């Protein structure tokens, strides 16, 4: 279980959020919403141990996330960024990038399994041999999400996974996340997208440094 308690972060003197508390249990999807610049990506960075908190703490299964423990904690996480320039040319290389890591030696990369994930996400198998530069933003994000699906880590953090997706692809992504959750994954999704929020169990909204749990209303 991922727990955030009384977390506060400010950036360049501006309070992004204050006293933010939530828990995400195994099999749950939490949606973090809010306008651009409200601190959604910053919150994901805090959960990854990439940013300090001004106050409060983050824990995973009761153990505190600290700079010295963060690397170990991240071994239980999969992370899908909103964008990243990857130093690879082909989509096949992009999909296999994480499978050379020591932590993933037990998870063998399988093209067949990847194609299965792509089918669920509505991606064309022909993309596999294409160049990364030829992918649309939406395809790129779904390829990244499919890799996270293959890794099958206990925690998934995804930043705007449905940005630039049409309604059908968004629905497929939402169902994909639900499927991962039903396998026991605790998921935190930062998004603007109300359509995706409909697939989440709970939602919090960050506005002007204040956080509201909108789960009841959702």
């Amino acid at each position: 279980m991922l727990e955030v308690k009384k977390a506060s972060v400010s950036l360049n003197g501006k309070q992004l959020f204050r006293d933010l508390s939530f828990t995400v249990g195994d099999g749950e999807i939490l949606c973090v919403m809010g306008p651009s610049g409200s601190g959604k990506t910053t919150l994901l960075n805090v959960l990854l141990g990439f940013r300090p908190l001004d106050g409060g703490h983050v824990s995973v299964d009761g153990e505190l996330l600290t700079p010295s423990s963060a690397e170990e904690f991240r071994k239980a996480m999969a992370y899908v960024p909103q964008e990243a320039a990857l130093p690879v040319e082909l989509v096949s290389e992009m999909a296999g990038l994480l499978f050379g890591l020591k932590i993933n030696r037990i998870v063998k990369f399988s093209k067949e399994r990847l194609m299965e994930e792509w089918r669920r996400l509505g991606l064309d198998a022909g993309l596999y041999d294409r160049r990364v530069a030829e992918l649309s933003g939406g395809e790129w994000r779904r390829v990244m999400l499919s890799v996270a699906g293959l890794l099958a880590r206990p925690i998934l953090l995804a930043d705007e996974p449905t940005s630039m997706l049409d309604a059908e692809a968004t629905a497929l992504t939402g169902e994909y996340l639900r499927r991962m959750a039903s396998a026991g994954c605790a998921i935190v999704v930062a998004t603007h997208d109300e359509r995706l929020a409909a697939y989440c169990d709970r939602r919090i909204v960050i506005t002007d440094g204040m956080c509201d749990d909108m789960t009841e209303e959702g």
Partner: protein
Amino acid sequence: MMTTDISYIGMAVGMALLAVPVWIFYKLGLARQIGSTLTAVARMVLQLFLTGLYLRYLFEWNSPWVNVLWVLLMVAVASFTVSRNTRLRMRLIVLPLLAGLSGAALAVGLYFLLFVLNLPHPFDSRYFIPVMGILTGNMLGVCVMGLNTFYDGLQRERQFFLYMLGNGASHAEAIKPFVRRAIEKSLAPCIANIAVMGMVSLPETVIGQILGGTAPGIAVKYQMMLAVIIFSASMLALLTTLFFADRRSFDAYVRLRDVRIRK
């Protein structure tokens, strides 16, 4: 075979050749280039005059301790030069560079002097000083290019670095693509140079040795060995420097520190 000395009149006649490029600069309206050429030549004359002077004393004393101290001084100057050329903060980069350059120069240089030349006294000025000098000079260029590539990559592709870390990569794994690229890019000119050596270019070392009276066969053997030790030492120096610099370049939250001095 005795080396033919160059008289002062001969030196002046040689320097007179500079009148040709200076005249061309003048005709092309490149006044700034005239100034920089003359300044560069004046600096070279002064520096080489001093080099001749200190080498004479180093060769006369022939003391291992003085020679090692001299090499450490060269390495220190090289470290500050790399720091200035890369605009990397001195407090971050100078100690890693001192470790990288001195470690690589001494390890590879002594290997060459002891096991290739089989010298009974490897710290003999005649061999130790020139070999360490040529290694330090060449490692400097490789380190400038390698460090620039490494830090430019980390600054430009931070999201990729975080993607790898965020998916369970260790720090060493996340940094590896940047180290690989730094090595690849900085050593590419060295490899290209080795590949055409003797065909496209005749290295100055060979020319110097032949002019100094060495048989061409011996001169080219020295050149082959020098090419190999320069290449090996450069890679070792860059890797060691990156290893120590990397540890100082990130804060506890794997954020790249403010490593560069802004223009």
